[in-house]
């Protein structure tokens, strides 16, 4: 029994070693696995932010009074808006079409007079709604500015305000996008690298015919699969470490919970993704198709359906159901819980269990399909 086990280990080791040699021979693979995630992380960390400022604002001041100028100053003083042009309100459409302004502030004639008379003065804000995110921000920011300006102009508050809301933010009080994105990004980058690397290498082995060579040797199916998986698993774990280290060093992403838990989540997820890559390559046997299928099945779901960028609860019911079979969903949820909220096993065991289930099922499928291919 011991002899069989050690022979098994020897053969898996030989397969892994051969695979590791391949990786070393082609530094591009390592580049893809290790440099690209860091570059992407920096790009995403710095580049992806939904917080917009210095929005281009055009002004149509029909009043040209001290009051109207004060209002415009209130818009620009905060740094939220930059005044880009003085226009006729009728030309707003033209500005929007050229993407020169995100909004036009229209102050009608008589603004100062109405304010002086104590009558309410309405100002109009024309908003380019084609980009919903930006438009939302424009509306929220303009609303706050006008409200504050109104308080400044209005009667002094009689005494204490009648209602007050205290807002308290947990986990990420500064509201930094990077803190939110890094755990999600880890899932995204691991998924891409793991699925594509295995899909490409195994499909390449089919194309070159070296796979048949392997089958002629006494190496068993499971041994081939494990031998293929192990080196990439190692690369994947290094990748995870890199992403976490860069996240902590550059973006100050905390790891509030257990580091072991983070690794356990990452390990189970990686096995699942590598299995998915293997499965694809066993089915397609062609590099061109394997890459397209790999990209489609790893990139899109892990970006769109994992909750990495877009909350799952906002999706229609069928997509929410679909997201339940996307392992990235559990990794993103688990990582956010462990890293940002400091959650432990008590809260995160369903995520671990789901990842483990996916990994077992996909590796079993790949092995079964492998056998059938040869029969």
């Amino acid at each position, binding site marked *: 029994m011991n002899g069989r086990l050690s022979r098994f280990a020897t053969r898996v080791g030989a397969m892994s070693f051969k695979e590791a040699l391949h990786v070393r021979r082609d530094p591009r693979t390592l580049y893809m696995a290790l440099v690209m995630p860091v570059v992407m992380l920096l790009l995403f960390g710095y580049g992806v932010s939904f917080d917009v400022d210095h929005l281009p604002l055009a002004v149509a001041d029909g009043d040209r009074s001290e009051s109207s100028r004060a209002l415009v100053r209130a818009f620009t003083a905060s740094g939220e808006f930059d005044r880009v042009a003085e226009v006729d309100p009728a030309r707003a459409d033209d500005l929007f079409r050229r993407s020169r302004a995100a909004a036009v502030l229209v102050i009608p004639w008589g603004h100062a007079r109405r304010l002086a008379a104590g009558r309410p003065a309405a100002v109009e804000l024309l908003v380019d709604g084609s980009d919903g995110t930006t438009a939302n921000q424009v509306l929220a920011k303009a609303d706050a500015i006008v409200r504050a300006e109104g308080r400044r102009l209005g009667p002094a508050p009689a005494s204490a305000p009648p209602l007050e809301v205290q807002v308290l*933010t947990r986990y990420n009080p500064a509201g930094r996008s990077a803190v939110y994105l890094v755990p999600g990004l880890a899932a995204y980058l691991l998924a891409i690298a793991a699925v594509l690397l295995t899909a490409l290498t195994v499909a390449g082995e089919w194309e070159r015919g070296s796979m048949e060579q392997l089958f002629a040797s006494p190496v068993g199916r499971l041994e081939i699969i494990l031998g293929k998986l192990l080196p990439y698993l190692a690369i994947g774990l290094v990748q995870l470490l890199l992403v976490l280290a860069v996240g902590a060093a550059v973006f100050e992403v905390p790891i509030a919970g257990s580091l072991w838990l983070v690794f356990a989540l990452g390990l189970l997820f990686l096995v699942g993704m590598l299995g998915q890559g293997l499965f694809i390559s066993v089915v397609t046997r062609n590099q061109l198709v394997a890459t397209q299928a790999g990209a489609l099945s790893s990139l899109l779901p892990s970006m769109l359906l994992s909750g990495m960028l877009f909350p799952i609860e906002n999706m229609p019911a069928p997509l929410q159901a679909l997201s339940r079979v996307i392992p990235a969903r559990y990794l993103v949820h688990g990582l956010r819980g462990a890293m940002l909220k400091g959650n432990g096993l008590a809260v995160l065991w369903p995520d671990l269990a789901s990842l483990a289930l996916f990994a077992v099922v996909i590796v079993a499928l790949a092995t079964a399909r492998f056998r059938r291919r040869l029969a």
Partner: protein
Amino acid sequence: MTAARGAGWVRLAAVARKEWLQTLRDRRIVFMLVVAPLVQTVLFGYAVDFQVDQVPAAVVDGDRTPESRLHLRRLLADGTLRRAAAFESGAAALAAMDRGEVALALVLRPGFGEDLLAGRTARVQAVLDGTDPNRATVAGAAASRYFGERAAELAASRAGVEPPLRLVPRIFYNPSLRTPPYMIPGVLAMLLVVVTTIVTAMGLARERESGTLEQVLVTPVAPMELLAGKMTPFLVLGLFDVLLVLTVGTLLFDLPLRGSLPVLGAGTLLYLLTTLGIGLLISTASRTQQQAFLGGFLFVLPAVLLAGVVTPISSMPRALQLVTWLDPLRYYAELSRAVLQKGAGAAELWPQLLELAAFGIAIFGAAAARFRRELG
């Protein structure tokens, strides 16, 4: 001279025909070129929603008076927040937040209604899950706005004056601020670059691997004829993908088609020239399909990110904003958005068209030059 030029067209047509047949014969490539765009359009259309609404909220009503119930009901009625659970204690609500079940906890202490009726300051606590800053901002703003407005109303009714300043917003093009009309033109830019860049990069690498490239290079087919011929089928397929996405977008997501379709067509052609040129450029630097794929990937991922497709360019740091000027996706995303949503035409979009043309010519020229040098 005319005879020579005629032969040039014959050679180009032969390359294009061969490429077209090879592409169509491979069912799997056709699948990728047709089904992948459909899946992406539908996924992006349904999954991506920048509009934050129905944020799950936990309610801890320690007051249980008609006043507390009225304000909680009215706050939760506007759609931004959704009552997901009610708890007896704040601690229980925070535990639910740890599990990710709720993103906001509204805590009303005993005495809220009494304070309100007595004219004292009635306090509400809103605890937010800050992991998703965007959602936290919107949810927090919804709570602040609601109570701010009520406070202003109450103050005004007590003092007998109206608020002096009022903002009347008017939203152009997309008044309900739906995400799909914004997202789908971006998806179009993304999809075309993925399909055309990677497929052409790998296609040329495949010919190099199998030796057919060498076979073609000993014929009089000029590098330019070969590259142009190889591109033609993907130009056609790219245009087909545009029609496909527009059709799906219109049918499923009420994507408006307001502007000049010829301008969109011209922009698409110039954009495809660029993306195909990049694919060819990558393939001249790659020996194998695997390298070509990785090269394509390394271009596509940052290019998509910097195009302003997923997040607005204006939210990026200045340095990155400068880099986006070098991203052809940016111009195509701008152009398609302006044509589809804003009804723009050549009069407004000539700068984008010029930029795309400049990119297309420069990149295609660089690919051809590299290709020619490779033969020396």
